[in-house]
């Protein structure tokens, strides 16, 4: 409902308390990302988007005026609602982006598995030792287990 009548009534602003909390969280968030990269738990190419998100949070906290401009553009009376909507949309886009990346990687993994299977069969066809001795089977079993865990 607030969305419908937004433009007709007065603005609801962020309090300075929320601004401080947001700024602290944003800084903490960016530090966490740095730490993840430092420990090789996150690749740089996937971290850019998170840095942008952290910077956005900082900007929003430091200059609440920008947020109010955006809220006005959206016709939303309550700045907090505008903030939530924007964040929700961004997260939706990000989740979709991850699905795309996941699909690509699934296809790559499948092709890798196929190449390996074909190579083994080709070696078997050529009559060479094809790793179907006990050690080869054991390593295959170990691989299967490590993938499952």
């Amino acid at each position, binding site marked *: 409902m607030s969305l419908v009548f937004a433009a007709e009534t007065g603005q609801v602003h962020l309090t300075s308390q929320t601004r401080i909390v947001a700024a602290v969280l944003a800084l903490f968030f960016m530090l966490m990302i740095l730490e993840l990269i430092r420990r090789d738990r996150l690749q740089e190419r996937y971290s850019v988007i998170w840095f942008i998100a952290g910077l956005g949070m900082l900007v929003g906290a430091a200059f609440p005026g920008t947020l109010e401009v955006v809220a006005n553009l959206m016709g939303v009376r309550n700045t907090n609602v505008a903030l939530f909507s924007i964040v929700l949309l961004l997260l939706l886009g990000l989740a979709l982006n991850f699905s795309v990346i996941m699909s690509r990687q*699934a296809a790559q993994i*499948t092709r890798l*598995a*196929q190449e*390996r*299977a*074909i190579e*083994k*069969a*080709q070696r*078997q*066809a050529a009559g060479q030792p094809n790793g*179907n001795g006990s050690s080869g089977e054991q390593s*295959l079993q170990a*691989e*299967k287990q490590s*993938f*499952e865990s």
Partner: protein
Amino acid sequence: MRTLVFIPAWNEEASVLEVIADVRRAIPEADLLVVDDGSTDATAERAREAGALVASLPFNQGLGAALQTGYLYALRNGYEACAHLDADGQHPAEEVARLLAEVTADRADLVIGSRYHAGAVAGSGDYKPTFSRRIGISVFRFFLTLATRQRFTDTTSGMRAANRRVMSLFSRHYSPDFAEIESLQLAVRQGLRVEELPVRMLERAGGSSFLTPLRSAFFIFKGLVVLLVGQFRPRHVEAE
């Protein structure tokens, strides 16, 4: 003509030996490849003991990926024709030989063995579909026929024969989730000659079908989405 028969198998140690023997008997000139789709039982060992080539995927990837492995192997190793059948003993190998004959005579690029074609003869011990399966079958039949403007009776048949044009196409594009239906749509859209041949199929020797009513409904819904999306895929004329 060099021919490859491949059998996708996932935990089929009970029936794989018999299927291999059947193929040897009916199509003695063909090379035999078992695509082991990450089986956790002795499928791969049994197949190797029986003298078949074995391509083992390191983890279960689904029927589509297993079939694609077979097509890719056939393409890479210069086979002029290939065919595949299920590992559960539902598909008599002499019927596969008839499909292959169509391909080697160059009457079609891709030949599907159909259980439900008007010419298919039913005998005792032959395949009879359950009720929920019959619904799914007619839904897919209707929509695939609509999508391709070609009559198909058995859209989910896993008994097929193909030439190099099809190998080349399927080794590049093969849906991992809805292999059977989407591949037919794809092949027709690429201008390949797809033909159905009535065949006999048997009741499955071991194991039970994975379909429950709810799963069937979901399966049908997913299939329709896949078909719809497939209609918007680009159409290329493939050159080998």
